[in-house]
Structure formats: C-alpha cells, structure tokens
C-alpha cells in the first residue's frame, strides 16, 4: 500500500537518511527502532512532507510521487491519506479536544459539521476521553493530550497513521495509557501504523514487523521475534542490549 524507495535527506551537509526503502501493507503495524540520530523521525517527516527529502520516491496506492519534486497538489493529496501523531502532541492550543479532532474533518476533509462532530466524539470515546470533549489542551495531562492527538488521527480514517515517538515526552506513569490506546486501535480497528518508538514491549506485542535503523539506513528488518530475540546484525544486538531492561518492561 505504501512503498518508499531510496530516500535521502541531509541537513546542512549532514546526511541523516542515506537511501531508505520501506514497504507497508494494509493492516501492518510496523515499528521502527534505532538509536537517536538514526533518522527515524526524519523518515516519518519526509513521508508526510513535513521535511522535503533530497531524493526518493513514494507510491501510495495509485499515487506515485517524487519525494523531492512533489507539487503542492500531490502533497495535499497524500496528506489526505496519512495521519500523524507527534512526539509533543501538537494539539491546536486554541481549540477544545473535540475541535482538535473535528478541525481536520470539517476544514481538511469537507465533512458536514454535524457528521464531523459525531465522528469526533466517537474518536474521543475510543481513546477514553468522553468526559473531556470541551477541555482545552492546557487543561489536559500529557497522556490525555496525546490521546486527543491519537483521536485526531484516527477520526480522519486515514490509510495509515504515522506515530513519531508518541510516548517519549510523557511522564513514565502516563506511557501505559497511551500505548494501550494504540494497541487497542491496532488490534480492534486493524489500522495500518508506522510507529517510531523506544517501547520494546509495544514492538513485541503489537507489531507484525520491526525495522532497525542506524545511521540513516535500514540495518535489519523482520518479525518482532527475528529482530528482538534473534537479531543477526552486530549493531542491532548492541542496541538491544542497551535498551532492553533485564528486570522490567511496561505491561500494556
């Protein structure tokens, strides 16, 4: 469904992505692991054109696009199919939780207001925020804000949701609530997801494919078992040793 080929991106001559290929099928939950600075976030941002790749191609269903030369219209068309969940939630601070969710429906997707509100409320119910329709972001905890961020993405009914380290900015005790919402959406709705995260337990339990990136390239990819339990590459083994705590893993 989504295929990207040979993505390159540099910032000030500092090469971040050095030719990344990736293909995702409908219903996949793909987790990208890797040390910070390996280009995971940049990859997601290039897919959604929040960064302009220096080189690379993407095909999205029947849309094929050059990631570097894409025109405004093509970018807009692709963004209509993709939703994004940000590390820092990035809720619209001047809108309530419900307005945050309906904004993209009413303005972006041109869905009638009444229908958008119903869909918005359903999405917020799904992430357990039925009580918070009219709360402003400032009134919500980090975990609640991120759940609104997820509801905002889910309500769009996109072909794929990109998650950019959705729990990294959260207090440890709030990580669980966000991960379990993501897990529920993946399991119950069959939503296609591409998730950058450091939560190994999420990769293990929810993902059907894990990609390990380092230094701007995909080092290794396979099933969670292949990557997490029986990794082949030296770099993967070294990384896993550092991040997997021996005695404790979040339960979700």
């Amino acid at each position, binding site marked *: 469904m989504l295929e990207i080929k040979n993505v390159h991106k540099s910032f000030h001559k500092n090469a971040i992505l050095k030719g990344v290929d990736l293909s995702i099928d409908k219903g996949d939950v793909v987790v990208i692991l890797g040390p910070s600075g390996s280009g995971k976030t940049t990859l997601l941002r290039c897919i959604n*054109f929040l960064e302009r790749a220096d080189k690379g191609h993407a095909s999205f269903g029947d849309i094929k696009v050059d990631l570097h030369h894409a025109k405004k219209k093509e970018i807009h068309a692709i963004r209509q199919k993709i939703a994004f969940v*940000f590390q820092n939630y990035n809720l619209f601070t001047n809108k309530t939780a419900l307005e945050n969710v309906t904004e993209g429906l009413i303005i*972006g997707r041109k869905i009638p207001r009444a229908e958008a509100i119903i869909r918005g409320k359903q999405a917020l119910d799904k992430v357990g925020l039925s009580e918070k329709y009219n709360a402003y972001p400032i009134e919500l905890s980090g975990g609640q804000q991120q759940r609104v961020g997820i509801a905002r993405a889910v309500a769009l009914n996109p072909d794929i949701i990109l998650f950019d380290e959705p729990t990294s900015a959260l207090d440890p005790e709030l990580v669980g609530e966000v991960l379990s919402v993501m897990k529920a959406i993946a399991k119950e709705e069959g939503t296609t997801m591409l998730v950058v995260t450091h939560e190994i337990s999420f990769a293990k339990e929810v993902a059907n494919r894990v990609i390990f990136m380092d230094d701007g390239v995909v080092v290794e990819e396979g099933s969670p078992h292949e990557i997490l339990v029986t990794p082949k590459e030296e770099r993967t083994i070294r990384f896993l040793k550092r991040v997997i705590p021996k005695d404790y893993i979040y339960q979700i």
Partner: protein
Amino acid sequence: MSQGLNYEFLIDTFFVALSGISITLLVTIVSLIVALPLGFLLAMTRINRIPVIQRIAQIYVSFVRGTPIIIQIFIIYSSIPLILKAFFDKYNIQLDIYKINPIWYALIIFSFSTTALLIEVFRSALGTVKKEQLEAAYSVGLTTFQAYRRIIIQQVLVVALPNLCTTTVNLIKATSLGYAMSLPEITLNAKVAANMGYNYVEAYLDIFIIYLILCMTVEYIFKVLEKRLSKYKMANA
C-alpha cells in the same frame, strides 16, 4: 483667568469638539483596516526572511519609528501636492490640488505609520506561535491558507491584543496632530472655537476629557475581547 472658567463656553465647546469625533474615528478605523492585514503580511516576510521585501519592511519600520509623526505629516502634506501638481500639469488634468480634502492625507499618513508599528507587533506575536502548530494543521489535511486562517492567526491575535490596544490608543491620540493640516477632528474643532475668545483652558479641558473617555472606552473593548479570545489560555487559572 481672574474670572474663573467660562462654564457656558466649556459646555458649548465640548459638543463642538465632540463633533470632530467622527473624523477621529474614521481616520483611526480606516488606518487600522489598512494596517492590520498589511502589517501582518509584512511581518510574515520578516519572519520567513523573504529576501528584498523583508529588507524594505525593515527600512520602512526604521523610517517611521525614527521620525515624529508631526514631521511625517509636514513632509507628506507639503510634498504630495507638489508631486500631484507636476503630474496633473504633465497630463493636463484639470483638478485643483488645493481642494483635496485633508482627510486623504490623514488616511495616507496614519495608515502608513500604523502599518509600520503593526509589523513589529505581529512580528513578535508570530514568534510566539510554534511552527508545530502549522505542522499539525498540515497533518490533518489543511492547506497553508486554511492553517493560517483557522489556527495561526487566531493564536497570533490573542498574543498581539495588548500591543494592538496600545497602538490603537496611540493612533487615536496621534490623530490630534491632524489639526496641523486643517483636519476637522476633535482637537482642531476645539482650537478654532477657542481662538474666538481666547478660552484656551476651557477648550483644552474639553478635548482632554473627550480623549480620555474615548481611549478608556477603547481599552475596555480590548480588555473584553482579550478575555473572550484567550479563554483557552486561562482555562486552568
């Protein structure tokens, strides 16, 4: 002054001066209508470092900030007729430039100077809105124009409101300098009335009170506006 204030004149002149309020408000409101979008767009060129235009905006701001409004009035009021006259003569247009209503000059001068002030107001306000807000808008499928209209401008306005209030109040007070080009606003009306019997103290008291009430009203309106627009910020307080 030995006979004290001339109360009759004080009251009569109050209404004479007050009749100039429509001109004062007209100049203020038209200047704001011109300066708000223009100032915002030029502030955007500064923030996004659009070459050439941002430099021009920068120089423009320095010119306006670096000169008293009264001098800007003198220069424009005395030079534009000359330029227009040369232009009319050249193209044989039969129009008496000395019959042009001074309100046109006032509108040009005050729009011009207010735009410069608002560039700076919006530039600082735009700096407080994080670019992540724009990215989030893109991610839910909004175009740049929609994102600005629905998300960015609303947030910028709330931050800019206190400074917009100051600019508006200063603008109202600055229009009193319109008397220098015979603009029949509050100040000129009172001065003309005072000229006849040398009742300057009464006339000045009148305009003092009128400006005070006018500016306090504007401040109140802005305060109400700010409270309504910024409820998302004080939700917890």
